[in-house]
């Protein structure tokens, strides 16, 4: 047990050791401090070429993990090859399966423009060729040839019929034949007068000629088919001439690329086969504001089939290495791309020009940084990402398609080979859940970069931290920070770390303080941010968040919540608890009381009985029972009935940091020794009676200090803390000043015996060689009381059993 000297209550950074007057004097660039392990992991993931070494960056928000990750990835990306451009083009054989092409970086837009020019030019060239006299003449010749062939066949038949004295008659239904006899057409009447032989001969002749005529007429469709083929051949010949001529002028550098050359050849053949598209487009062209020569035909949907749909191009950043992409809203569509539809005649239609790229396309060949929580909260996005990483290809599938929600035409684009490193940034809880629940996660994300929350407050780290703050101020365009200001920030980082030997690496919080201090420095028209500005920022931040704390302190001051800070009471002690709202935490005292009587060895935790106590609190109380039974009246039944309660506590309580206070209250009640109410206690205890470290020690001390200060500090008031918490002390200046002025005290204890002695002013007492505690000591009084309970219980048992009661012989 020792009172802690004031200089140990706050580890102050000396501005003089920082080695600069203001941050304007130190360099602008600085790396994160104390994150070597995480940064090495990021570097490894960035460099390793094998798949599945994707990265999960875990750590607290505001630790600079995101910017550090992007910075390292960007550095590594600059050393890597710029990935190829990716485009989708029409698959003329299977339009629902667009083809993906991989082009050298920067070529895609040029290819797209070249194809547009090709279409625009042919939209002029092809109609001109088909309107030419040359084409018209050849076409007329083919048509005349057909017509003459048909006419000749009919003429030949007519001649034969005439030679055989048969007349050809036209009727609305078709042709009829009849014999000519004596220059007259034979009718039914004249026919009947002929002799049978002549009738048979006429019938035979007519029947034969009818068959011949039918055969002549049946030749017409065949002849027309031949004609159509000839016209098609002529069209192809003419179109080929125009298209080949124009294709020969195609960008030769582009044609040197195999896949472009192949596609252009396919396009050439398709245009030749579908030259009528260009003729129709010209025929349908409305008179616009621009002359025909500058009309941009390629924008006509008819020519979508020749479009080059650029999914991703690295033209602008050619030579700058691989891409580093961040997708802030990683929905399924924005991640893997989407296929859009348009409404046409009441139905949804699409084509390959409506394929839109996603983040995976943009990042392909480089790095993609995603926020893990956002990714996991987007429906199907995580599954889609895993599937792409597993198959190492990007396959676009819409959510509706996956869920079979709509039935409409869709596409099956060629999967695009995927080679990228995905970096998820998230918290530790998510990482743990993914490891535990998703077997794929471990396979795909083999590297983790675990960002530290704190770093040792060594001289070296302090200097690096100062440089980091200077770089931050420069990067954010803030005023230079004086050495005093930096020292104050470093102290605040220590406070944030809850440890006087550490610095918090939650740079976001420290950066926010600096930005707020910038405002106050501006209010003062100061060119620099000074310690006072930082202090004001801390104070104002505390003030903004402290409404509930103030109301609670007010309730204590006004006696609404009963807390004694003077005098002594038996079985009553001031415990300390911490209340947190987001990032803001504060401490407050709570009255803990204990009541004892003879019983059957039961320790009642009232908080637990009414389900206001959490499991850790219950555990702490049960440890007390273990401590008592193992320490006192070992040869007698444990005959205590005790109850413990946090008075005026109406919310849940958890944690075991009040277990030592509860034990002190119990010991006070058992020993009937009053406890000094000017002291408050925090610390957990084990069954051996050792006081153990707890969290939030600074807030707890400050909470009791404020209560005491509001009522007037007496110099006897103070807080008992576990000795192991001494190095966590980073108290506010007002507390330190009060201790320095002997108006408040902070005492560290290692054992319950130390604590109870201080609280009761009576020695705890060690068990002597005779096995007994010294008379009058706290422990002796406790043991005596427990023995009395046991004996009373035995006596009660004997008295309660009726005489003669027992089994009969």
């Amino acid at each position, binding site marked *: 047990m020792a009172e802690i000297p004031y200089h140990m209550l706050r580890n102050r950074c000396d501005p003089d050791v920082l080695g600069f007057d203001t941050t304007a004097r130190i360099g602008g660039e600085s790396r994160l401090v104390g994150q070597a392990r995480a940064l090495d992991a990021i570097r490894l993931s960035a460099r390793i070429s094998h798949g599945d070494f994707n990265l999960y960056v875990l750590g607290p928000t505001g630790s600079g993990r995101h910017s550090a990750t992007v910075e390292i990835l960007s550095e590594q990306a600059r050393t890597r090859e710029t990935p190829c451009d990716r485009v989708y083009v029409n698959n003329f054989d299977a339009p629902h399966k667009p083809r993906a092409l991989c082009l050298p970086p920067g070529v895609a837009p040029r290819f797209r423009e070249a194809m547009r020019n090709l279409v625009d030019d042919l939209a002029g060239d092809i109609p001109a060729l088909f309107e030419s006299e040359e084409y018209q003449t050849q076409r007329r010749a083919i048509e005349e040839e057909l017509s003459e062939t048909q006419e000749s066949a009919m003429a030949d038949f007519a001649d034969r019929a005439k030679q055989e004295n048969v007349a050809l*008659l036209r009727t609305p239904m*078709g042709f009829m034949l009849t014999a000519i006899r004596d220059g007259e057409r034979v009718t039914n009447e004249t026919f009947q007068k002929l002799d049978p032989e002549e009738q048979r001969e006429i019938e035979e002749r007519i029947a034969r000629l009818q068959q011949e005529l039918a055969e002549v007429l049946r030749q017409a469709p065949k002849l027309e088919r031949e004609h159509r083929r000839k016209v098609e051949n002529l069209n192809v010949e003419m179109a080929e001439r125009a298209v080949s001529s124009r294709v020969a002028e195609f960008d030769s550098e582009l044609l040197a690329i195999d896949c472009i050359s192949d596609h252009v050849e396919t396009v050439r053949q398709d245009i030749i086969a579908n030259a009528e598209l260009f003729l129709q487009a010209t025929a349908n062209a409305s008179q616009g504001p621009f002359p025909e020569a500058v009309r941009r035909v390629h924008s006509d949907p008819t020519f979508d089939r020749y479009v080059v749909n650029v999914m991703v191009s690295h033209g602008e950043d050619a030579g700058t290495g691989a891409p580093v992409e961040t997708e802030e809203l990683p929905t399924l569509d924005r991640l893997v791309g989407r296929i859009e539809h348009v409404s046409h005649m009441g139905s949804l239609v699409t084509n390959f020009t409506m394929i839109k790229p996603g983040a995976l396309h943009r990042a392909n060949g480089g790095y993609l940084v995603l926020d893990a929580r956002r990714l996991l909260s987007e429906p199907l996005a995580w599954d889609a990402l895993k599937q792409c990483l597993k198959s190492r290809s990007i396959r676009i599938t819409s959510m509706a398609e996956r869920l079979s929600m709509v039935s409409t035409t869709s596409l099956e684009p060629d999967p695009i080979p995927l080679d990228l490193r995905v970096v998820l940034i998230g918290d530790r809880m998510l990482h743990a859940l993914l490891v535990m629940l998703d077997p794929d996660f471990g396979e795909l994300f083999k590297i983790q970069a675990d960002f530290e929350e704190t770093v040792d407050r060594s001289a070296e780290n302090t200097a690096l931290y100062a440089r980091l703050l200077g770089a931050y101020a420069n990067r954010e365009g803030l005023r230079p920070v004086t050495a005093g200001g930096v020292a104050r920030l470093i102290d605040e980082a220590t406070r944030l770390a809850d440890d006087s030997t550490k610095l918090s690496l939650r740079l976001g919080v420290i950066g926010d303080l600096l930005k707020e201090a910038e405002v106050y420095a501006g209010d003062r028209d100061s060119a620099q941010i000074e310690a006072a500005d930082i202090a004001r920022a801390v104070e104002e931040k505390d003030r903004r968040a402290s409404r509930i704390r103030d109301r609670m302190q007010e309730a204590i001051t006004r006696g609404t919540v009963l807390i004694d800070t003077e005098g002594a009471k038996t079985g009553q002690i001031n415990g300390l608890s911490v209340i947190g709202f987001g990032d803001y935490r504060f401490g407050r005292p709570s009255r803990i009381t204990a009541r004892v009587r003879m019983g059957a060895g039961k320790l009642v935790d009232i908080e637990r009985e009414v389900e206001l106590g959490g499991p850790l609190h219950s555990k702490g109380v049960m440890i007390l029972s273990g401590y008592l039974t193992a320490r006192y009246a070992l040869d007698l039944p444990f005959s205590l009935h005790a109850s413990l309660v946090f008075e005026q506590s109406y919310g849940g309580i958890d944690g075991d940091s009040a277990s030592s206070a509860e034990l002190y209250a119990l010991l006070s009640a058992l020993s009937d020794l009053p406890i000094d109410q000017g002291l408050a206690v925090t610390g957990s205890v084990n069954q051996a009676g050792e006081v153990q470290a707890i969290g939030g020690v600074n807030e707890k001390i400050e909470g009791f200090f404020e209560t005491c200060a509001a009522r007037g500090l007496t110099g006897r008031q103070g807080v008992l803390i576990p000795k192991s918490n001494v190095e966590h002390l980073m108290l506010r200046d007002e507390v330190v000043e009060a201790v320095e002025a002997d108006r408040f005290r902070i005492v560290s204890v290692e054992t319950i015996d130390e604590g109870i002695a201080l609280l009761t002013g009576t020695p705890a007492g060690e068990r002597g060689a005779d096995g007994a505690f010294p008379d009058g000591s706290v422990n002796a009084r406790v043991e005596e009381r427990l023995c009395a309970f046991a004996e009373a219980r035995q006596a009660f048992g004997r008295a309660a059993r009726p005489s003669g009661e027992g089994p009969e012989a």
Partner: protein
Amino acid sequence: MTATRTASLRVLVGAGSFADAEAALQMIDRLDRRLGELGGLFLEEMLLAEIAALPAQRVVTPGGMLKGAPSRRQLGALFEREAAAFRASLSRVAKTRKWEFERRQGELIGALYEAAQGWDILFVGHSATHRFPGQVVLIAPPPGAPQRAAEMAGDLASGLGRGLRSLSLAPERAATAGEPSAECFTDAAALLSRLSRLPAAALVVDLAAGPFHGAEGLRQLHEAARCPILVLGAGEGEPVAPVMPAG
């Protein structure tokens, strides 16, 4: 001549079926600018009923199918429908012009030739026998005769967007060399033989100017040409066969 070209023409369209009439009426639409009064004459050749009654008589359809010949009653009903369609089509083409329609019985060419009296033009309908009708063919009048047929053929060819081919008869002259669109024949049979092998879009002839005259000349041309025939001067000759007004 200018006066002739600008004067409104009275045109009589004659046909034995709606399909034939429709082919002529579509061409008349192209002559709209010069069209005045329009007449329609549907000829019912009752001889067809007699011939259709022949034993084993069959009809060869334009598609080359052989079907049973129609009975007299069926033929009568068919004529009724065809005439109604002809009349409707005629009224559509006539638009706001004066028009008249008549049905007669008799032999087609003879009846049309006789009915053409008083009309400027007789248009003998004939449905197309092939998909790509060729040029407009002119039976060129002999030198010295009025050349109004040539002008009319030129207008028609221009209106139809077709070329113009001229066939002429000149017993003393050989075929014209170096003029593929003008052919000259030494006898009518050769001309008709050539005509029967030409895929003509339409034939234009002036029966008053020659070399073919009268109904018999028109009949020969109709038989050989198998296309609509625009006839000038038909009203200036004599009918060759008696005709009876229809029912």
